[in-house]
């Protein structure tokens, strides 16, 4: 696994990156990559996620997922205990035993992810070896992969990156000399995928394939003729793995808001040489609908000042959308990592004077937030209520990942997420 690289190596400078960025090192108030399992386990319907970790990891999953789990989850934790650490039990045997128990209980599972955690990494438990060994036992019924969701290597949404990257070597090969194929990379709601598929087809593009796929038996093929669009900004390892297989990224902004969605679709259209008129014909009605939907919220959001704490890595595209389309004023846009290359289009659209920050020292950032008294603060679950209690309106960022927000027909929903805390405050007389 190569996640450590993410934190260490500054991304290549490209595009407009001359803005000053606050880079801080202190307490971070961000979930670890395990959290991605909460949406991934619903997206890939025959997959199961087995975290190899501690009671803390299990407790994190349950606390972060608590409200959102209605059915039996397709994830679990194999909790390392003192017998494993003391060498009284062979950790690998224990893992094999747990996998056997799990697969016996869930015969519907076709794809099993062994997910590494801080403790498994610190004790140097090699999950890639384990996955290889177990794969031999369970092939062809169950495919077994591994990635890291540990807090020492990954933040929040990077868990999805790790998961998708681990699947890339498994994808079937798109035969050389095929027509160019379009791959959309990053979790999207099913309904959003279907909308995009319709738009691409109507423009005359190939029917896109999606990573992650809904069914592990339908892994999308990849090869030098693959052109891919990132649907999420936090997929560095996945992008690298796709490039290793010859695929090429179509540079684009992210499909949030009218402008982002248009730019994203247009980037693909250009790749296939679709003329402007066709593009306009296909997208006009969606754009118009989105414009109308945004109109309702512009009044509530325009001129309001917003502060982003780092969390989902969606901060930059969101800030771009809120400032350009909703007329909000950006105070600080914090993000765990600023990937200059993938965000190049986004950064070039941000206002000149925006304050970016990367990494975090939560106490210092709270000081800045207090001093700025924003109208709206985007932050994680640990900070939201305390800030509300101080009189600051907040939007908890995890909701942005659990709500379909991409594309024309979700643009209004996206704006509404930010308007609601303000509307609510205005309503309440208590």
């Amino acid at each position, binding site marked *: 696994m190569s996640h450590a690289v993410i934190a260490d190596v500054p991304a290549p400078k490209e595009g407009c990156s001359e803005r000053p960025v606050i880079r801080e090192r202190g307490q971070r108030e*961000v*979930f*670890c990559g395990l959290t991605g399992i909460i949406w991934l386990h619903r997206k890939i319907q025959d997959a199961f996620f087995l975290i190899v970790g501690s009671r*803390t990891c299990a407790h994190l999953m349950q606390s972060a997922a608590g409200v959102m789990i209605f059915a039996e989850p397709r994830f679990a*934790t194999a909790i390392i*205990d003192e017998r494993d650490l003391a060498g009284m039990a062979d950790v690998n045997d224990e893992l094999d035993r747990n996998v056997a128990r799990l697969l016996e209980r869930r015969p519907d599972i076709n794809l099993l992810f062994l997910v590494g955690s801080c*403790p498994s990494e610190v004790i140097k438990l090699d999950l890639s070896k384990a996955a290889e060994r177990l794969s031999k036992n369970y092939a062809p019924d169950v495919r077994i992969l591994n990635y890291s969701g540990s807090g020492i290597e990954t933040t929040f949404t990077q868990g999805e990156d790790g998961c998708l990257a681990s699947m890339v070597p498994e994808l079937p090969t798109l035969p050389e000399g095929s027509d160019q194929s379009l791959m959309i990379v990053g979790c999207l709601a099913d309904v959003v995928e279907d909308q995009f598929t319709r738009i691409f087809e109507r423009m005359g593009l190939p029917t896109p394939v999606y990573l992650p796929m809904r069914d592990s038996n339908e892994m999308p093929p990849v090869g030098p003729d693959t052109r891919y669009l990132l649907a999420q900004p936090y997929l560095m390892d996945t992008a690298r793995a796709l490039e290793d297989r010859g695929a090429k990224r179509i540079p684009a902004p992210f499909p949030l808001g009218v402008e982002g969605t248009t730019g994203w679709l247009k980037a693909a259209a250009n790749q296939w040489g679709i003329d402007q008129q066709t593009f306009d014909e296909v997208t006009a009605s969606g754009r118009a609908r989105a414009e109308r939907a945004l109109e309702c919220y512009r009044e509530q959001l325009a001129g309001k000042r917003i502060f982003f704490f780092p969390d989902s890595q969606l901060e930059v595209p969101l800030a771009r959308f809120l400032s350009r389309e909703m007329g909000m004023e950006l105070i600080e846009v914090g993000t765990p990592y600023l990937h200059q290359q993938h965000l190049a289009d986004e950064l070039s659209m941000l206002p000149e004077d925006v304050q970016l920050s990367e990494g975090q020292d939560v106490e210092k950032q709270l000081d800045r937030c207090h001093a700025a008294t924003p109208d709206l603060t985007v932050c994680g679950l640990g900070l939201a209520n*305390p800030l509300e209690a101080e009189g600051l309106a907040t939007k908890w960022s995890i909701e942005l990942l659990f709500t379909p927000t991409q594309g024309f027909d979700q643009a209004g929903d996206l704006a509404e997420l930010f308007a609601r805390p303000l509307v609510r405050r205005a309503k309440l007389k208590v």
Partner: protein
Amino acid sequence: MQLTVWTYEGPPHVGAMRIATALKDVHYVLHAPQGDTYADLLFTMIERRDHRPPVTYTTFQARDLGKDTAEIFRDAMLASYERFKPNAMLVGASCTAELIQDDPAGLAAASGIPVPIVPLELPSYQKKENWGAAETFYQLVRKLVRPAEEAAPREEGVRPRCNLLGPTALGFRHRDDVREITYLLDKLGIDVNVCAPLNATAEDIARLGEADFNVVMYPEIADTTARWLERNFKQPRTTIVPIGVGATRDFIHEVAELAGIDPAAALKELECRLPWYSRSIDSNYLTGKRVFIFADATHALAAARIASEELGYEVVGLGTYSREFARDVRAKAKDLGIEALITDDYLEVEQQVQDLQPELVLGTQMERHIAKRLGIACAVISAPVHVQDYPARTSPQMGFEGANVIFDDWVHPLMMGLEEHLLGMFREDFEFNDDAVPSHLAMHGETGPRVQAQPEKPDAAAADDKAPIIWEPDAEKELRKIPFFVRGKAKRNAEAFAAEKGLSQITVETLYDAKAHFGR
């Protein structure tokens, strides 16, 4: 290695956080990776606290390993002292930091920070949340408590004083229990010297020795500390947890004895509605309702007594995840003629609920999931709980008002008496379908659509793995005419009866024979 879907308890450092967050001026520096900051949301979201927990996480990363993690810890400690100026500090490691062995205790000792610092050794791969809370409280008290002066005999007219020990942040109704018990003690003529850790300061902890005795509200948290205080400060402690009418009365007598007062007048004045409500004829239909209980030891034991003695239910299952107190729960179960379930494996609990088919489940948030899935009525009686179990209104579990609250909460989820009869009588009525919920409960998210956990078709007797017992189609049809809330029991009884008689098939006759055999 243990396979876990849900866990009843978090890691021990979360227990320590519950102590730190309960206190007013104590800060906790936790050596931990960034993901561990999720624990803040337990307090800010689930308990809806309006402040961040007083915890600084070092959030070291992989690239720091082997180089300067100890330095990161020291810096975080010094910076958080400067920023928060606490009157005492806790320092310790989470599971990951425990593995890298940076010695928070040594670093704290050398830090020069001018307030007491309590280093915590909480073995994460061995112990759990409640143990962590108990140990933290104990270490903190040992460090901060001042030696008591030789107590002069109490003067005439001075009220006896006690400490309330055990309530924490994120506790199940701790806030309301403290209020209720303080009220009750006041009625008895007893003052509270210090309540700890909830809302106490470091200085309050220092004053613990000034009380005449200790009230152990939650043994899981306070038992170790109270025993230590008993040995070192000659403070006797209570042994009865006042949850339920009988236990509250017993508690009053115990406290009166420790305080050397006569409780008669107060007992006459204090009122409780549960005894009358339970005796009123409307409650007749509650008789013998089959209830399954799973909780922390304190609440499980209390629930078993209340259910059997005060509501007239039949306790068919009793269990706890608090291994430290397993012995008491085993004894109570034995009294009730059943075997206790001691486990922290959610799947095992689920299996037992499924096998026992109770009419009411009293449990934690996890049992709420189980009950919902199986379509069984449920009330939550113990941590871990969810946001809806921190109600806006005051709703204690302890004392006489607590008993009133319990009466409401444990009767309310059930079908009302006459309604139950109507369903039995007119079950063919097309409007009485299987999804009928008690008419006083709206169909909101909480109740939700009933998920058919088991196949509608009766399956093989799950009890043993002998040859499966076959249900004849007619018997199956007949079974389906039985209202859903007793159907599980009827099915179970019929299968048990068939197994007992060595029958391989269940007919309509068998169904009714079983009914006659087992009674209602």
